[in-house]
């Protein structure tokens, strides 16, 4: 049985967006085409990456998000996705763990800064 990413990639190669009756991943509208192109260039690919590669990557990212969401729903508070669940799920992966910690810390700092700024404006 071919793996899911392989099938999606193979289908994309064969009929790029042609109308079909099957509910394949490749038939869904592309959500991240533009952003993924910039991202691939940023990560080291050519300035114009191949569309098929971008499609494969998009399918992979969507599958990753889906898997993480399902896992997060099954732990902690059932049926809901909370930040603590996500942090728990990637605890073993140092890069992702550090990244999430940094993002959340920076978000808090920015919120505090914006709040202080707004209060300063309100006072004057």
């Amino acid at each position: 049985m071919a793996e899911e990413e392989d099938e999606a990639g193979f289908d994309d190669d064969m009929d790029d967006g042609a109308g079909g009756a099957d509910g394949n991943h490749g038939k869904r509208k592309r959500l991240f085409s533009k952003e993924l192109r910039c991202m691939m260039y940023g990560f080291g690919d050519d300035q114009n990456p191949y569309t098929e590669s971008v499609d494969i990557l998009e399918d992979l990212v969507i599958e990753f998000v889906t898997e993480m969401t399902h896992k997060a729903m099954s732990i902690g508070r059932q049926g809901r996705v909370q930040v603590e669940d996500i942090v728990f799920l990637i605890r073993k992966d140092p890069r992702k763990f550090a990244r999430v910690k940094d993002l959340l810390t920076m978000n808090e700092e920015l919120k505090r800064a914006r709040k202080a700024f707004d209060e300063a404006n309100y006072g004057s």
Partner: protein
Amino acid sequence: MADPARIKTESNSEKSLAARKSPKTEDTEEVPVTSDADTESKDPSSQSLKREQDSVAGEDEDEGTSGQPASKKLKVEPEKKKEKRQKVDEDEIQKMQVLVSSFSEEQLNRYEMYRRSAFPKAAIKRLIQSITGSSVSQNVVIAMSGISKVFAGEIVEEALDVCEKWGDTPPLQPKHMREAVRRLKSREQIPNTKHKNILFH
């Protein structure tokens, strides 16, 4: 090419580099923050503490990778750890500035794309909500977009390794991507809950 995005060695510098990149990558936020403003926002906090500590940056790693011992260390010596961390941040900022100032134009373009690119929050939120059926908080969306970007980066880096190993040149082709996925799967870096290991058949 000294492209920071391609640094792959699992060393202190790589981890702290990855950790340092994130504060500046607030392009996901609505407030447009340039890199200068970023270093300034960090500087006031680091300037308040002077360079009294001269220990290695190695301990800083533990906080990122394993939560348990780091929190115990924090309780024992909070002040010392904080000063050390801020000093390490200062060094990191300076090193990054030196590095970025020596980039060629093409490297600068690529670095800018690396920092600025992000997944649209609305699309990620819609995707998560379509799976859960209920609404999710903003922090979840922020966390998920962040790790998705790291995930995409891991795949692209692995695919570039494969491409180089096979003697091809960029742009990456689907066969490189698929081989990269296969390798990451064998290292269990790609979550897969579809396959059940039946131990005793």
